[in-house]
């Protein structure tokens, strides 16, 4: 995503979630969101069967 696309995503989500984002916070938020989406793509491209169970409450 371009910086402009990320900024539109940030603005839309900030409005939805009720955040007031100061201009000097934006660059770091954008950088962190870019990492989130890069790591998200790594997870997204891994094929799992429909039956795969999530592990939100974990028991070792």
């Amino acid at each position, binding site marked *: 995503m371009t910086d402009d696309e990320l900024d539109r995503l*940030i603005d839309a989500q*900030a409005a939805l*979630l009720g955040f*007031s984002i100061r201009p000097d916070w934006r660059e770091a938020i954008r950088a962190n969101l870019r990492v*989130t989406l890069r790591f998200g793509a790594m997870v997204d491209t891994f094929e*799992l069967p429909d039956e795969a169970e999530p592990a939100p409450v974990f028991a*070792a």
Partner: protein
Amino acid sequence: MTPWQDAASLAAAVRSGEITAVSVLTATLDRIARRDPALGAFTALVSARAMARAEALDAARAAGEALGPLAGVPFAVKNLFDVAGLPTLAGSAINRGRASATRDATLVARLEAQGAILVGALNMGEYAYDFTGENAHDGPSRNPHDLGRMSGGSSGGSGSAVAGGLVPIALGSDTNGSIRVPASLCGIFGLKPTYGRLSRAGSFPFVDSFDHLGPLARTVRDLALSYDAMQGPDPADPSCARRPVEPSLPGLEGGIGGLRIARACGYFRQGLSPEAALATDAVAHALGVTAEIEIPEAARARAAAYLITTAEGGALHLDRLRTRAEEFDPDTRDRLIAGCMTPAPLLIKAQKFRRWYQQQVLRLFDKVDAIIAPATPTTAPLLGQKLFSIGGETLPVRANLGMFTQPISFIGLPVVAVPVPEMGAARLPIGVQVIAAPWREDICLRIARHLEQHGVARAPRPVE
């Protein structure tokens, strides 16, 4: 006593009457008063409470009562543990407005029940979302081996306090590496137990399904001593396993005979500084390890751990981010705000991947009893350092100090981080992870003890 005396011998001396608990505590508080202004490890002391406990211990001994295995041992806890009479800061400014805790965290109470004496609360990265040990509100906890360098986080004060000779034992928390990273950078031993082994009741959360608590110490025996004292089920923590106490001390000197140990390859061989590679080589050599084993999809596991952490962490602080965002440490705030924007389908896929990954990794323990891997990619970076270069790539320090710890805590495996001293031109320590199957902390500790006995792993004493 000296500031470098271990907890086991201190307790023995108190039990035998060679020294009093009051004299140990007085020396400890004097040492903290002299040295902590340079280290920045403590955020609060509980001196009066500690002195009352020390006096009670000495009186009990004088009355002929038997004292516990941690008699008179001073310890401190990361300030996300509840300490009666203190607000539980979790490294934040916002929590300073909370009511003081009315009771101690379970693990504090369990250590004190064995005779240990809490002396205070320790600095940490805000809300535990940190690998550096820096904190905008309290200042950084500093690395005792070089005060211009990071302690590692988020249990940075725990690393500074133990490595700096302020207390022999500290407690920390580890969600993605926050015990193992400071243990590595400060050159001490750290135990992240199996998920669910130690109660988290009375501690401020970060990511519920990743959060672990555990000890840091300068010797393996002290690590085992404190770990054994804290085990056991706790109805106050629904994630705490209903397992009996499985003491690690009786088998600690069992050596490594019969253990199948392999070195993690692939992901864990990439992105290493020369110091991290040499330290892992030294540990492998000392253990006679020649076999290598691939932890499958470790890079993706790290990515999934990152996603779950940022999303769950963001959700935990959602209301505070809406109403008090200016009061956060900027480094934490910006990550948490971004975390709240994680697409839900990716979060759920990360949780599904987690189950798959766990099943693959558990199969490895049919072939081996333990796996060794680097703990951090480098020795301690400089305070304020934002980027480092690893394997020819420039990466952000804050997010990448935990690149080798995240894929392990992601599925709750027990790990002891062992310190290899004096690596590289800067002669700084760096840690190596000893990883075992769930509930086999005893194996991690046995291997760590073997490495300590053979001089490969030890907590170096800083020059002051």
